[in-house]
């Protein structure tokens, strides 16, 4: 993932809901603990007292949850079941920790044969279904609560063992542990002081997982008669009884079942919350795009030439903003206008955060979740893309406009061969048959300068070098002969020697296909090489636009000058490269006036008012001192 996702909340649940859930879960577990401790005093009846005259009754005033097949009070048995559940969870988890953690620490720290043999045994045990392992151990020890819990403790110790071993393996190579060893700290001291703090958080998470699993397993084992033995009451044995009387009194199954679910749910939810806070949480999604707002039409544009016949792209007064759900908009591109024609390469140059990539993505209608165009028009071959329905825009993508991304190794799908990815576009966009598409694929791969195209078409992305992968990405982008190609830093991720080849390829292909190229880059040297005209962006605004030769000979905006003097070729080499002081202000923190003002050496009071973009003959500049710089250059 190279691009930053603008909105990425860490937690799935809103803080309020999360707090409520955590609170409820803790409360339920506390109630459970109290019931377990106080069972002897609060139960209305003796859980073992039979009364065959009142067997299998439904809930009543005397027996709130009814009676079972022997006339025993279900509520009393349920409360005693809490005690069993607490004992079971505590016993099995404690055994699992006491067995697994020290062994895991030991083999992780010791390594070698100890580690190898233990891990093979663990693998073998884990490959047997857990309940079967428990059953076999119970066969050895005999049935009953404590024996069953020893069985479960042994079973679950494998996960604690692996956890402890993993932490030790990761930590023992950490610098601070190694340096502790160098200064002569003893092994046990290292284990206690350095490794224990790192093992605690995942351990707590694992405990919650284990407690939940133990409760379910204990219920299961008691249900099949290998855990708690009748007549003692556990939730599992109660369900065993209920199973025999489903047709006479199905309600018997409800109280113990609900007790198990609520308890396990509380433990699991608590575990989720802990896991989120410990930072091992599952990835959460950015929120879905807020409802599409209406795009306001562009203000009349004065800086663009009148539309011509060979104009391909015309962006008028484009404004895009981060639009959070129910929050205020933060503009990230403001009032951007530009146009480009057939066979021309227009460079969009700027530092990261200037809005150049977002401009490219807004043409495709692929701004990320939470980012939207709020004003303006994007006309491609005369059609305003902002007025199209999603389905219509899908038609335009690939056929009329395509994009080449920065990192070719991540922009190709790792699961499919590169040839099939190009063929897929040809088949879905142009309706070619499988054979026709494949023929064209080989031709395209040959055209972008890859030798042995038929063989390469069958390669997966990871089998290709970066330069070759980028050639494939270019071939895919050009497969439907689009009139506009957006290239987003297409050479940045490549070796310097390969960069030039790719730039040459762009030039050749443009000569052959005649498409317009919108070339996004932060590198002025690359832009000088490939572009016909360059548009310099700064903090979401265009600050200067000029044909490439004029821009380099006579840069007028102080920012452009700064960029040029920071280029290695421009400086003489002996003094260190000059840099522009400060950094690009973040969206939302832009000054009202000139956005470059706080970094500019020529800053005056006039710069504190909004500065318009002005100019003629294809030279545009956004600076109150423009005239002065022009005269300076002339003299």
């Amino acid at each position, binding site marked *: 993932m190279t691009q930053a996702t603008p909105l990425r909340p860490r937690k799935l649940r809103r803080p309020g809901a999360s707090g409520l859930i955590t609170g409820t879960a803790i409360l339920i577990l506390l109630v459970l603990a109290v019931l377990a401790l106080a069972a002897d005093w609060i139960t209305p009846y003796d859980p073992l007292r039979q009364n065959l005259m009142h067997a299998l009754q439904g809930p009543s005033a005397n027996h709130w949850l009814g009676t079972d097949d022997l006339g025993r009070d279900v509520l009393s048995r349920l409360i005693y079941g809490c005690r069993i559940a607490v004992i079971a969870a505590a016993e099995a988890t404690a055994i699992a920790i006491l067995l697994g953690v020290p062994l895991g620490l030991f083999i992780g720290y010791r390594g070698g044969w100890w580690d190898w043999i233990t891990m093979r*045994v663990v693998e*073998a045990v884990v*490959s047997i*279904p857990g309940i079967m392992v428990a059953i076999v151990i119970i066969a050895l020890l005999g049935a009953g609560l404590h024996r069953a819990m020893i069985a479960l403790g042994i079973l679950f110790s494998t996960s604690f063992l692996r956890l402890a071993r993993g932490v030790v393996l990761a930590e023992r190579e950490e610098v601070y542990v190694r340096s502790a060893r160098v200064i002569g700290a003893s092994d046990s001291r290292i284990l206690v002081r350095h490794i224990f703090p790192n093992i605690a958080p995942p351990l707590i998470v694992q405990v919650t997982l284990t407690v939940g699993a133990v409760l379910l397993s204990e219920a299961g084992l008691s249900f099949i008669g290998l855990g708690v033995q009748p007549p003692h009451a556990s939730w599992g044995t109660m*369900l065993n009884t209920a199973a025999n009387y489903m047709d006479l009194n199905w309600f018997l199954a409800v109280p113990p079942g609900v007790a198990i679910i609520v308890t396990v749910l509380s433990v699991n939810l608590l575990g989720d919350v802990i896991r989120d806070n410990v930072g091992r949480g599952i*990835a959460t999604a*950015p929120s879905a795009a807020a409802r599409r707002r209406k795009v306001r039409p562009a203000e009349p544009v004065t800086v663009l030439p009148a539309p011509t016949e060979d104009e391909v792209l015309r962006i008028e007064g484009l404004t895009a903003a981060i639009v959070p759900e129910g929050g205020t908009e933060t503009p990230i591109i403001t009032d951007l206008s530009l146009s480009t024609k057939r066979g021309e390469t227009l460079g969009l140059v700027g530092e990261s955060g200037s809005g150049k990539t977002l401009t490219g993505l807004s043409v495709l209608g692929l701004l990320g979740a939470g980012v939207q165009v709020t004003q303006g028009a994007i006309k491609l071959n005369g059609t305003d893309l902002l007025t199209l329905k999603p389905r219509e825009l899908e038609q335009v993508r690939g056929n009329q406009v395509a994009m080449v991304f920065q990192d070719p190794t*991540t922009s*190709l799908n790792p*699961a499919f061969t590169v040839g099939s990815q190009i063929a897929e576009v040809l088949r879905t966009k142009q309706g070619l048959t499988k054979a026709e598409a494949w023929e064209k694929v080989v031709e395209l791969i040959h055209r972008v300068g890859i030798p042995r195209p038929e063989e390469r078409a069958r390669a997966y992305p990871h089998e290709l070098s970066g330069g070759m992968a980028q050639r494939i990405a270019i071939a895919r982008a050009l497969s439907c002969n689009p009139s506009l190609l957006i290239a987003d830093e297409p050479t940045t991720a490549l070796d310097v020697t390969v960069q030039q080849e790719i730039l040459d390829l762009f030039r050749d292909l443009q000569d052959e296909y005649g498409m317009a190229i919108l070339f996004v880059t932060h590198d002025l040297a690359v832009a000088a090489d490939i572009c016909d005209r360059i548009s310099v962006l700064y903090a979401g605004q265009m600050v200067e636009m000029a044909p490439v030769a004029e821009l380099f000979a006579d840069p007028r905006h102080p920012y452009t000058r700064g960029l040029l003097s920071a280029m290695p070729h421009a400086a003489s080499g002996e003094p260190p490269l000059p840099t522009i002081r400060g950094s690009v202000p973040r969206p939302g923190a832009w000054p009202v006036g000139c956005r470059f003002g706080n970094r500019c050496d020529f800053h005056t009071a006039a710069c504190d008012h909004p500065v318009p973009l002005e100019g003629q003959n294809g030279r545009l500049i956004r600076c109150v001192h423009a005239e002065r710089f022009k005269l300076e250059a002339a003299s």
Partner: protein
Amino acid sequence: MFRLLLRRLLALVPLLFLVSVLTFSFTAMLPSDPVDLILGDTGTTEQHDMLRERMGLNDPVVVRYARWLGNAVQGDLGTSFFNSVDVTRAVMQRMPVTLSLTAVAALIAIATGIAAGVAAALYPRSWIDRLATIGATFGQAVPNFWFGLILVAIFAVNLHWFPATGFTPISQSPWDWLRSVTLPAVALGLSSSAAIARQVRSAMVGVLQMDYIRAARAQGLSARRVILRHALTNAMVPVIAVLSFQITVLLGGALIVEQVFAINGLGTLAITAVRQQDIPMIQGLVLVMVGMVVLVQLATDILYGLLNPKARPS
């Protein structure tokens, strides 16, 4: 592909060997004396000694293990201590029952789990996502056998849509088989479905943020195509490991769910064997179950290789 398969198969040999050692040594530690179990209090001391000699129980444990393993490799898992039942035959008789229950439950869990996970990932924070997340959290807290009881109460006892108990082999009547297997399979599959849904959602959310998804969209491929083909294929790679584990869980869970529906599968056999301390039966059952788990792992390994080209040996 063939070489990958061969390599995986060879890697299984030491694992199976280790499991057989573990199983044998564990069951050899069982407190009861097989001869006492078989003859009970009857028989003279001579008869006891004769049987002991005939069963080879006086041999060193290594010899006994080698003999047992040698027979097991040839498909002979020995004879039960009770009723002189042939273990291999008893296990093979019950296996189709447990296997079909596990397979149907796995199908249900995979289908519903993936569908729910994908839907939740596509519309994060929508009501679908919330419903799927809450459902998955609940699903993992519900004991499968309790869910089975409730299903019986509703759909068998009250509505009479399905039989409450029993199992019809598919060879006897496919329709009755489907009716008999539906409720237990749903009960068994619930928690796995929940676990898979959580994994799929998390994997999809990660994949949907990848560059190649945006690149595919930029090429004008439809959202549906990009999600179902490009994203799901990649999201399944981490899910495969969970699938493999969940099928092992299902196989274990089947032992318990069988009891709810009075299905005569491996579960009933195992529980009886444990109660009776029937050593050959327990050994045979464990070995056969591990064999099944290992086959599932092999299948998921191959699937992993198919979905993830980087895992293939070039």
